[in-house]
């Protein structure tokens, strides 16, 4: 087995020790790297572990095979089989107790010298050591030695004679009489004791596998086969045995020993080792000669009883523990799936074979996986900081946004971007756009000024700048405007029309109304510290002095950028002379400005009239500013082309800034679709589409799909309150989404629905408004069926007739009731509701029932054993978002 190639053996009891045997025995201790880092001489085995050489034993030359004594004491006792057939007991390490000393150096010598092929300690009676030898025509090949047998004088004489090879000087005891002699006139290549019975020995003989029974040595059970090498018993199924021949592994079932139950696919080269994993059922590792992989066969089921001809499922895997060719390997006796491999030149690697890891995501942010017998759960920790926020998954973001009531602010629509965290420029742009579109004053103004917009079937209001520009009906006027604040009379052509004005309003540059003054906008930009943007807007409005003033203000502002002064200086030198040095320098140096707004300012100043590509296609400038710019300076022929182009670009990229152009139209849905495809953010999509889309757009299957998916998400997160709020929000904007009543209660006597007749009662309004004031005279009315005036069932606890109008009739002045009711009072009202168990149909006032079940598990009605409160597991879950 060994020869020039090293073999490796784990200590059966010390989990951290193993022996490498080639020409000598070397004992290693394996340690985790943390503790041995400083130690010199430690050989790293893996990223975490290293091995230290503890002892070397070179007392036994011509070593052929080694077996480690299976019992605790004496530890580190090894049996070594030699080329001449002798078996020598030797030891590694220091602990020399009396028993060990006695055994040390003991030799077991066969009658005729030939190679010892294999050794096996009996796992139960550890004094028995089986040795398998080569064939000798006059001798047995399987010898079982008793290591405790005493020195026999008559045996020592021949021992003296045969002492051929062992040139060692030890005066060890020599034993020549084996306990049992088996397998005459045959060779034995492999051996193993069967755990079924301590007296059964399985041997791979020359041409057959044989089971020797030591209770009756004349008998043996055998089967002819070539697969006689490396017999080994599955530690988990004692009837399952593996053996191999050349490149083929045979699996045997000892209960039906006639033929192998299984032969594994043949390998191109002979195998050198086959071993069952000791820590896991049905995992067999095989090693091929000159190979760098260990091939694993995973037999994932228990061997079936005889007669059942099922195809066994075997999963074949290859693992590559190290880069080099593997000489040998050994499973760790207790650590799960761990092995040490050794290369022919004694390089060692510590390696763990991983099981198939199955994994699953929860609806939240946790991931769970199973590795072997272990379970691990891991969840995303909320990191702080903007960078972490940007890196987070959209599911986490949506969850947080749902909790901060994102999308629910219908009055100050722009504020939703703050609720979303306020760090996403696209969302900011989107909500500002919607704000401008939905702004009430704005609407009134538009209705006044552009009544024809509403003459169409589809209000142009929601349809974005693209349609506004296209529908341009009023004539565009060109006005040549001079630069204010500049001495030179340079003129720039600026276009004006009602639609363009409207577009500018949507862009947020000007307030609604006939006034086209951008000053309020500049002020607000200044307040937010967007100096460059403000300056650019001022400049585009041809107010160069204001732009310089803004830049100067920005520079002098607390923590302001002093470079802005330099920019201001550069601006002030503006000249429209085509060949001036200023122009030349500006057009080349502007590209090096890092701020896009500063860059476009100079692009504007240096460009030819009508050719503003430097501004229009600067993608770092917000879309709304570029569009506003285009509305001011592009002619009627250029403008729609530019807007179209930009719209398509936005649609393709799924850029929410483009909603400004598309509005909440079909085009907008297209854009949103590519946004959702890219980000998965159905939340923003749902809220955005619900913010004022026309019914037609809401009916788009894509929109419905987003809404459904978002509701499903909220449900999965147990954000039921949020989902309910979303539904309420939705039904306000999309009345068709209102669900029907879910429960009807009909009267026991007349069979009419209580709520139905209730709502048809003429005085219901009064009844409701007074309802809730306990003891009020009107309450007695609701304890009877409104249809037939018969009393309603009694509460099982207070035995009073129940009565609560369950219908949620519209127009009951609910809202003002809500205001003056504290939380307690609201709950007090809920206490009057009547509830019943669906299983036993007993019920009563909700308050009484809750009270009862807080102390009891069974129904309050006598002789009813229904466990009403435990019937529904989902009902016991609490929403994650209850506040």
């Amino acid at each position, binding site marked *: 087995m060994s020869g020039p190639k090293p073999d490796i053996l784990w200590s059966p009891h010390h989990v951290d020790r193993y022996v490498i045997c080639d020409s000598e025995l070397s004992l290693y201790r394996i340690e985790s790297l943390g503790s041995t880092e400083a130690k010199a001489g430690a050989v790293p085995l893996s990223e975490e572990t290293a091995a230290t050489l503890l002892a070397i034993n070179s007392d036994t030359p011509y070593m052929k095979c080694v077996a480690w004594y299976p019992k605790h004491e004496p530890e580190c006792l090894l049996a070594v089989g030699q080329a001449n057939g002798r078996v020598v007991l030797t030891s590694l390490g220091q602990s020399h107790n009396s028993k060990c000393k006695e055994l040390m150096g003991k030799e077991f010598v066969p009658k005729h010298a030939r190679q010892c092929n294999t050794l096996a300690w009996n796992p139960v009676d550890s004094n028995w050591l089986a040795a398998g030898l080569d064939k000798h025509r006059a001798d047995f090949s399987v010898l079982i030695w008793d290591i405790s047998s005493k020195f026999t004088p008559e045996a020592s004489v021949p021992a003296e004679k045969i002492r051929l090879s062992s040139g060692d000087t030890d005066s060890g005891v020599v034993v020549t009489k084996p306990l049992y002699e088996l397998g005459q006139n045959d060779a034995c290549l492999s051996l193993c004791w069967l755990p079924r019975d301590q007296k059964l020995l399985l041997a791979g003989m020359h041409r057959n596998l044989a089971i020797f029974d030591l209770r009756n040595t004349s008998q043996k059970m055998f089967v002819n086969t070539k697969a006689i090498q490396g017999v080994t018993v599955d530690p988990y199924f004692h009837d399952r045995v593996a053996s191999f021949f050349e490149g083929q592994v045979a699996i045997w079932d000892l209960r039906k020993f006639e033929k192998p139950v299984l032969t594994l696919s043949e390998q191109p080269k002979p195998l050198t080792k086959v071993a069952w994993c000791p820590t896991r059922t049905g995992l067999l590792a095989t090693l091929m000669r000159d190979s760098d992989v260990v091939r694993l066969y995973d037999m994932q089921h228990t061997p079936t009883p005889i007669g059942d001809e099922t195809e066994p499922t075997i999963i074949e895997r290859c693992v590559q523990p190290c880069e080099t060719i593997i000489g040998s390997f050994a499973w760790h006796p207790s650590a799960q799936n761990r092995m040490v491999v050794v290369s022919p030149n004694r390089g060692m690697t510590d390696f763990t074979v991983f099981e198939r890891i199955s*994994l699953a995501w929860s609806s939240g942010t946790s991931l769970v996986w199973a590795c072997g017998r272990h379970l691990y*759960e891991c969840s995303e920790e909320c990191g702080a900081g903007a960078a972490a926020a940007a890196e987070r998954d959209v599911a986490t973001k949506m969850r947080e946004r749902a909790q901060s009531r994102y999308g629910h602010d219908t009055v100050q629509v722009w504020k939703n971007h703050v609720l979303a965290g306020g760090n996403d420029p696209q969302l900011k742009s989107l909500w500002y756009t919607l704000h401008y579109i939905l702004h009430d004053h704005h609407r009134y103004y538009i209705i006044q000024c552009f009544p024809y917009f509403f003459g169409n079937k589809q209000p142009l209001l929601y349809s974005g700048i693209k349609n506004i520009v296209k529908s341009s009906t009023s004539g565009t006027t060109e006005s040549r405007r001079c630069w204010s604040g500049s001495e030179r009379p340079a003129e720039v052509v600026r276009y004006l029309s009602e639609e363009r004005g409207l577009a500018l309003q949507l862009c947020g540059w000007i307030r609604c109304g006939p006034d086209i003054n951008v000053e309020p906008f500049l002020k607000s930009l200044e307040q937010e510290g967007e100096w460059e943007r403000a300056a650019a807007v001022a400049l585009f409005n041809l107010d160069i002095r204001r732009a310089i003033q803004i830049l100067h203000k920005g520079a002098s502002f607390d923590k302001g950028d002093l470079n802005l002064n330099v920019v201001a200086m550069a601006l002030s030198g503006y000249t429209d002379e085509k060949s001036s040095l200023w122009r030349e320098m500006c057009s080349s140096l502007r590209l090096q400005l890092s701020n896009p707004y500063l860059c476009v300012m100079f692009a504007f100043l240096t460009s030819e009239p009508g050719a503003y590509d430097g501004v229009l296609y600067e993608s770092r400038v917000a879309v709304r500013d570029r569009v506003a710019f285009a509305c001011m300076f592009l002619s009627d022929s250029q403008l729609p082309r530019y807007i179209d182009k930009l719209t398509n670009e936005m649609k393709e990229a799924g850029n929410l800034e483009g909603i400004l152009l598309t509005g909440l139209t079909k085009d907008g849905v297209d854009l949103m679709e590519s946004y959702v495809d890219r980000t998965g953010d159905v939340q923003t999509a749902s809220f955005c589409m619900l913010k004022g889309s026309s019914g037609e757009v809401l009916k788009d299957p894509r929109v419905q*799909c987003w809404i459904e998916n978002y509701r499903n998400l909220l449900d999965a997160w147990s954000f039921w309150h949020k989902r309910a709020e979303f539904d309420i929000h939705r039904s306000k904007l999309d009345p068709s989404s209102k669900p029907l009543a879910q429960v009807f209660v009909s009267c026991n006597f007349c069979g009419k629905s209580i709520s139905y007749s209730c709502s048809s009662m003429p005085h219901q309004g009064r009844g409701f408004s007074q309802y809730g004031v306990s003891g009020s005279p009107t309450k007695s009315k609701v304890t009877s069926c409104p249809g037939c005036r018969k009393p309603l069932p009694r509460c099982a606890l207070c035995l009073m007739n129940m009565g609560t109008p369950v219908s949620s009739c519209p127009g009951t002045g609910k809202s003002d009731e809500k205001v003056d009711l504290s939380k307690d009072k609201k709950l007090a009202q809920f206490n009057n509701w009547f509830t019943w168990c669906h299983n036993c149909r007993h019920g009563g006032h909700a308050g009484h029932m809750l009270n009862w079940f807080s102390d009891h598990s069974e129904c309050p009605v006598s002789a009813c054993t229904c466990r009403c409160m435990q019937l529904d597991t989902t009902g016991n879950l609490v929403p994650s978002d209850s506040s």
Partner: protein
Amino acid sequence: MFVARSIAADHKDLIHDVSYDFHGRRMATCSSDQSVKVWDKTESGEWHCTASWKTHSGSVWRVTWAHPEFGQVLASCSFDRTAAVWEEIVGESNDKQRGQSHWIKRTTLVDSRTSVTDVKFAPKHMGLMLTTCSADGVVRIYEAPDVMNLSQWSLQHEISCKLSCSCISWNPSSSRAHPPMIAVGSDDSSVTYTGKVQIYEYSENTRKEISSSTGPTKFEVQIVAQFDNHNSQVWRVSWNITSTLLASSGDDGCVRLWKANYMDNWKCTGILKGDGSPGNGSSGQPGALGTAGGTLAAASQNSLNGTSVGR
């Protein structure tokens, strides 16, 4: 930033599958020890095993939850050639006090003649439907016509895939724009020339599931990204709820997390060792995982095994 912690699973053999319920508050595991365990999350976030019972007479391959609107229902499948449906019932009060729940078998589906390798409930909008697939390549779709009676299941469709099936997955979308679809994966090692993933969709006209990917392909399947970071066989992949994060596990014993950026470029955002110890790219904190740095940036050009069926 992901932090892993161990849960004392206490299965006696390999755990083959783990599955969360719809709300992520319950978990089920199944194992070669022939048992299924149900776990409930306590308020402090700890997992507490509330049921453990022997389900099959062979390794249990997969376990899966039905949507909670059908009750607390589990399905399991096994090497013993059966699939089973389980329902939690209200146990005796002392059970409840011990924090244990009781699960009873509602049905055993015995149609397969080989090991049943996967079981999945259909999306809830289709009603209570269950699909199984088996090692001999048959996909079976069962339906419980009465959702209140879990002991009656009728075999609605039987699709022969001609390949040994190892896993199935429903298209979760409830969109009416496309009919229900199932993807079936095969572990057949002999087949290399045709795809190992087949997609079947329900045809309203013929009222049966028809194949759409083996023959003339209806869908254009596009590789969005492909990675070989696992350096070995990849065993399992799983999407998070928004399909924006993908987790994969492979023979290298690592769990890797993948995420796409704005431009739909996928990259590895984290590595976790299967045994819960920190991955290679992480900082030294125990059990913590940092975002994998430079080594993976290069790998993003290589690409990952994720396919997306036409959005």
